[in-house]
């Protein structure tokens, strides 16, 4: 048994190590490329030049606004819809799930043009119109995350149990349903933010200067700055993920693996 156990542990550790290297090597290489000076020393110069690039900073804050709006719209749209599907018409779930997959199969150029034609003129003049496009684009991920959270609990029984104990609709939603699907909601938020922070095709097609498009342009003139910012974005995303995961664990009182 002992040798078998040793082989199993070695295989497990080996797999983890390969996984770590898979992520670590490109980040390490990018860091060397971005932060190493010609004399071999390291410097944060690329970061400070990025912060001096007002266009880049402005586009970052604009993108964060769009991300916030997209998250808000996604949650407002999906939580009641998914709750309704689970509670009232569970038979329609498969159809809605199919519908949410369409952004993955329709090319961005088709979606972009369709989006332009379908938007009211007043919205076309503002980059915040991207909120609507990104909400649709994030559907395959955000819908699945929230839907699987709802599937993991017995919505109907919990609803009935709370109602029988005297809770009104709003109490049931705020104290029972939302906390129990929090893991899925956090996952949807994270995936939506990640998508908005990295989305290039739509913004570029619709000629809006968001963080990814400005970063691409900046990269053409100063590659090390662009790479440094990419690394910072990655670290930022990791921090968000860890914070959400920690918050989710505390709110549920459970150990949840990942978000």
């Amino acid at each position, binding site marked *: 048994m002992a040798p078998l156990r040793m082989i199993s542990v070695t295989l497990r550790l080996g797999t983890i190590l390969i996984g770590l290297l898979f992520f670590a090597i490109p980040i390490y290489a990018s860091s060397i490329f971005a932060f190493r000076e010609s004399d071999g020393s390291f410097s944060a110069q690329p970061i400070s030049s990025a912060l001096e690039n007002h266009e880049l900073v402005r586009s970052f804050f604009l993108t964060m606004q769009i991300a916030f709006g997209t998250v808000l719209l996604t949650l407002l749209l999906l939580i009641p819809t998914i709750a309704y599907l689970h509670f009232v018409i569970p038979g329609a779930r498969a159809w809605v799930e199919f519908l949410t997959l369409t952004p993955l199969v329709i090319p961005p150029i088709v979606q972009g043009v369709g989006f332009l034609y379908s938007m009211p003129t007043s919205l076309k003049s503002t980059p915040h119109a991207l909120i609507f496009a990104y909400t649709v684009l994030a559907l395959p991920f955000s819908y699945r995350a929230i839907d699987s959270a709802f599937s993991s*609990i*017995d919505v109907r*029984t*919990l609803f*009935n*149990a*709370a*109602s*029988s*104990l*005297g*809770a*009104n609709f709003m*109490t049931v939603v705020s*104290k*029972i349903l939302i*906390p*129990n699907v*929090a893991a899925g909601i956090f996952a949807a938020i994270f995936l939506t933010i990640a998508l908005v922070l990295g989305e290039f095709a739509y913004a570029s097609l619709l000629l809006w200067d968001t963080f990814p498009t400005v970063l691409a342009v900046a990269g053409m003139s100063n590659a090390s700055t662009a790479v440094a910012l990419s690394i910072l974005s990655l670290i930022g995303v990791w921090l968000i993920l860890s914070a959400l995961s920690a918050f989710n664990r505390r*709110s*549920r*009182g*459970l150990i949840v693996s990942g978000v």
Partner: protein
Amino acid sequence: MSRVILEKVSKQYGKTSALSDFSLEIPEGLLVTLLGPSGCGKTTALKILAGLIRANSGKVYFDSIDVTNLPPADRDIGMVFQAYSLFPNMTARKNVEFGLETRGVARPEIKKRVDDIFEVIGLEEHQEKYPHQLSGGQQQRIALARAIVIRPRLLLLDEPLSALDAQVRDQLREEIRRVQREFNITTLFVTHDQEEAMSISDRVGVMFRGALLQVAPPQEVYQSPINSTVARFVGNMNEIPAIVSGNSVAVLGMTLRLDDKSSFSSNSKKRVALIRPEDLEIVQPNHMGAVGKISGISFLGPLSIVEVELTSRTVVRVAKPSQSISHLVRGQQIAVVTTAERVLVGD
């Protein structure tokens, strides 16, 4: 505590009738069980009482107050479900406090009541655990505590034991009965398990295809079923072809004189004698009775079931104390007899 009445309640799902003209009275402080096969409408009746579904017609009264159109939150009921229904995001204690908080009970009173109820169910040391840290039996006991801590007018139990293993089920069944008596709560229990219904109830209501066939104390339902459907559903029955003539029946090679209650009215010409396994006797084949051969013996602890294949090819089961049949062997020729008062005739 309330007297609860369902009056001529009907419920249809599309073209399917789940309940038709269903009437039931649960006297104050009693535990009434609705017993019936799956799909007979017992859970529908319970949900209508809870206000979780609306009846198409009929009325629901709690102490002569019409609550037919009241939502569940305003009915003052406690409910335990078949599925584990503790709120996963709350500890056991928070779950029990939930109903009191929604009712706006003062904090000191909540603390006192919750402490008391945990003592009653004997789970004081598990108060701060989350549902996933509790066993199925513990979860259902907490759910029971959560339902009764609010001192409901009516306690509804929707097959709360069906997901538990046999030993835990027996323990919890006794606990439900003890707590129900201690708090004197009017209770409706829904189950398809006859043993459960018989052991826990003050009265058993037998349901079949959306109708309530008989409501009576468990012993009466078992010994004096109102019709052949109830007789067949409650307990085990041997069904032996019989010939009825006037008020006598020819069965097992004997002619027995029946009283009025023993024969269920029917237009059918094909009649059967319904005899419980414990109401058959095994005798030597040279006696009167139907001759047959023992085709199997099943040992069930204190009782054993002897399976006898009669010469007419009918197979009957005879239940006897294990000690009294130790001399019988498979393949042995014997005869089976009964007495008139143990025979029911149906179709």
